[in-house]
């Protein structure tokens, strides 16, 4: 058997071990699995995966699907009207296909027309990888926010030991809907984490997301947003990598209609032998006149061995638009360090203070005070523990 056939063979075994589902769901799984076998795992020869090698995932022998959230609903019980949303938005890549092939239950949120949900809705995914087993989890989230409705969503991913999380989140924002979304990735140091999120924004809908990547050995986030007329998307992110961690953030903002605006700010802190990728694609379709789009990626590189690849990709087909982008890669400012030291603050503390200040810019934008405090605490512990972060 070839290596590829062998990889797929392992997954076939896992796939066929599943309990059979209702016909409509089984059909969805079957076609997704067929798609997965056809595509296989991407390699670094694929432009989209040039800097992220998923061979460690492709070669691993995963055993057993991790249990879903107790609060999840079986996909089979999803109202017929919402089934049509499943898989309609997410791009049809190998990982999304694999997620759908293992579709069993789902974190499902529906906010009725005009309803304002004040309390943040928290979705917590936890996987525990036991010694000797290598579980795979395929968290699926569907969020349907009807026209004029508002809600706040916090997705958190955590776990222990070795495992593979392959998450797919689809968000549908009706006309004028307002969604404040957060994704906090705090996977175990050994975990593989692949996450795809696709957002469809109706007319004048407003979507904000903050994507915080702190854990995991190998992490890839794909975020896509499609904007209708007058829609607004804010896509911010913070990634902290150390040791041999690798985090890849790919975003695609697709301005399909006029008068849309998007703001994107990703900040990264890299230390040790870690590596990170930021690839931000902005598409402005021919119809999307008066689009206003801004993209910024800033990186703080604290060691000689850390690597960052950052790339803006602007595809503009309209002529009356404003699109700006910028990327910076830098080190801690020597003058600021000296200023702090000259007041008695030790070099290590001065470095962590300035590093934290760099991250604080993103943390300050988080609107949920409890989440902000929690993250500040996590970051300060992280900087403290490494000392020379």
């Amino acid at each position, binding site marked *: 058997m070839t290596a590829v056939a062998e990889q797929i063979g392992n997954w076939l075994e896992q796939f066929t071990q599943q309990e059979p589902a209702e016909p409509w769901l089984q059909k969805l799984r079957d076609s997704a699995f067929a798609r997965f076998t056809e595509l296989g795992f991407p390699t670094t020869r694929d432009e989209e995966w040039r800097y992220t090698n998923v061979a460690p995932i492709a070669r691993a022998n995963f055993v057993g699907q991790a249990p879903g959230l107790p609060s999840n609903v079986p996909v089979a019980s999803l109202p017929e009207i919402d089934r049509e949303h499943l898989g309609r938005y997410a791009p049809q890549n190998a990982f999304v296909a694999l997620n759908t092939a293992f579709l069993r239950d789902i974190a499902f949120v529906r906010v009725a027309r005009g309803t304002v949900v004040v309390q943040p809705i928290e979705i917590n995914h936890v996987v525990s990888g036991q010694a000797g087993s290598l579980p795979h989890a395929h968290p699926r989230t569907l969020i349907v926010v009807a026209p004029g409705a508002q809600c706040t969503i916090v997705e958190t991913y955590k776990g222990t030991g070795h495992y593979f999380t392959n998450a797919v989140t689809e968000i549908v924002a009706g006309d004028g809907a307002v969604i404040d979304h957060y994704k906090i990735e705090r996977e175990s140091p050994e975990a593989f984490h692949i996450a795809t999120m696709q957002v469809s924004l109706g007319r004048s809908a407003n979507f904000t997301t903050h994507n915080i990547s702190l854990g995991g050995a190998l992490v890839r986030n794909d975020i896509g947003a499609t904007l209708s007329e007058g829609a607004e998307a804010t896509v911010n992110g913070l990634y902290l990598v150390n040791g041999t961690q690798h985090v890849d953030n790919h975003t695609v903002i697709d301005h399909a209609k006029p008068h849309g605006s998007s703001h994107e700010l990703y900040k990264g802190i890299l230390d040790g032998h870690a590596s990170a990728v930021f690839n931000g694609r902005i598409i402005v379709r021919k119809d999307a006149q008066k689009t206003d789009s801004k993209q910024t990626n800033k990186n703080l590189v604290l060691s000689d061995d850390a690597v960052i690849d950052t790339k803006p990709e602007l595809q503009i087909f309209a002529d009356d638009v404003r699109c700006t982008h910028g990327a910076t890669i830098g080190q801690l400012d020597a003058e600021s360090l*000296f*200023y702090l*030291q000259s*007041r*008695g603050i030790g070099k290590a503390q001065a470095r962590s*203070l300035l590093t934290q*200040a760099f991250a604080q810019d993103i943390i300050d934008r988080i609107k949920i005070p409890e989440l902000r405090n929690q993250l500040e605490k996590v970051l300060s512990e992280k900087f403290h523990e490494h000392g020379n972060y």
Partner: protein
Amino acid sequence: MALLEIKDLHATVGDREILKGIDLTVEAGEVHAIMGPNGSGKSTLAQVLAGRELYHVTGGQVTYDGKDLLALSPEDRAREGIFLAFQYPVEIPGVSNMYFLKAALNTIRKHRNLPELDAMDFLERIREKMTAMNMDQTLLNRPVNAGFSGGEKKRNEIFQMAVLEPRLAILDETDSGLDIDALKLVAAGVNAMRSAERAMIVVTHYQRLLSEIVPDYVHVLADGRIVKSGGKELALELEAGGYAALGIQEEAEAVGKA
């Protein structure tokens, strides 16, 4: 024993020599003014004493309170009681003034075997000093120097000095960019700190600061060397005759501003 003793100090930045043999002795309780045209090495001397790594000391010795100052890290110098009021205080977005100053004070207190202060005690302690410097309480929650006016930055430096209570304060062109009211306020803050245990080195280009902070000694620095020393009347001589009266060409020196 002198608090500070500088002997034949040489320093370079890149491959350019800026300090070409400085000798200076400062006793506790004294205020020394260092004057000189732009590029004479005044600011370099101040930064070298505070431990800025940008400058390389290529020769000479500096003894502070009996210790080899040049062997100490910048933070250890601060903990031992050296304070540099910066000519250009650095803006640090994302770090609040309050957090910064409390961290600084507590590190220094720890070094002096004093108990660390909690937020309440810290606020209590600094309130009066803020008022004295005519500083608004809201400055505490703002990031360090970020968005401060030139005058606010200079006042913040003197305020920090008042809080950290150094044994040797080095004021690097603290008067530059200040209007006369701000200058009087800053000078009053400095004068309030004069004591028998504390020494000060006041670096300035102009005499006007020295009518407010009256020095015990005045030294004239030119081309990396102290070319003349005297009492407070030397500053007045300079004011009347300019550096040219001492045979110092200002224009030529200005090229080498560090």
